[in-house]
């Protein structure tokens, strides 16, 4: 019998794997964006699990909004990456120091 704890454990595991992905792939900005997508996926799974087991549809409405905002975020992020690559011919994170922050 699959209970709520199974789903929540799976979701926590996926979130921790993507945290490790952000540490490991800190040079490659595209893999960083993919790790962020994985995190959003695990959070959405959490929302849907709670929505299913509490018999309340509001969680799924929230997942709908999160999906829309995440699509907008990745579109703008990829546009920034393309523009950066055209200007500097590389997308390495440690070379992005134009703003001298």
């Amino acid at each position, binding site marked *: 019998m699959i209970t709520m704890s199974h789903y929540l454990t799976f979701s926590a595991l996926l979130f921790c794997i993507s945290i490790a992905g952000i540490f490991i792939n800190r040079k490659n900005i595209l893999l960083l964006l*993919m790790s962020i997508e994985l995190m959003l996926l695990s959070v959405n799974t959490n929302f849907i699990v709670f929505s299913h087991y509490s018999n309340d549809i509001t969680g*799924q409405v929230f997942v709908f909004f999160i999906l829309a905002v995440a699509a907008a975020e990745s579109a703008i992020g990829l546009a920034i990456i393309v523009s950066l690559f055209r200007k500097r011919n590389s997308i390495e994170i440690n070379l992005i120091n134009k703003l001298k922050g």
Partner: protein
Amino acid sequence: MDIITILFYLVTSVIILSAISLIIVNNTVHAALLLVLIFFNSAILWLMLKAEFLSIVLVLVYVGAVLVLFLFVVMLLDIPVRKNSNQKLYLLFSVVTSLVMFAELYMVIFYHNFTNEVNIITSSELNNTYQIGLMLFTDYIFSFEVTAFILLVAIIAAIAINMTEKQRSLRQDPGKQILESKKSRLRIIKGNKL
């Protein structure tokens, strides 16, 4: 062991293994294809949780649009595959951090004991898409409009960031004006050469 249990363990193990290989693979194209696999299996998982509308939306919007955009950018930019140096320290640090985080989250899940908290009433007379639409267009109509505006802003921003300036444009470029020197603009001609 019923079919749902087998399906759950199959799908989650595929997702976890693909996620682990996604974060350690060096090739970005392989990573994008692994992300496609992860999203498909997550759609199956959401279907098991009776969220049919969102599972179809995940396949259509994410696999159909966002991941194709990822693949397009990866292949457009042609990033050289390169081994990272000085990786051992970061690998150790990431493993320790994620293990600590997972231990904390698992303690919360285990001691709270979510197993038999609520009884499931699955027999609803409305289907999933109808219920979401009902909520979306009554209680959350303002949030829905804001989401539409966010998507519009994303379209405009993605175009405006990548728009190249035209040659015929009369816009003045301050950098080019500052770099202009006297020698390139002014030529002294002696009178007898005319």
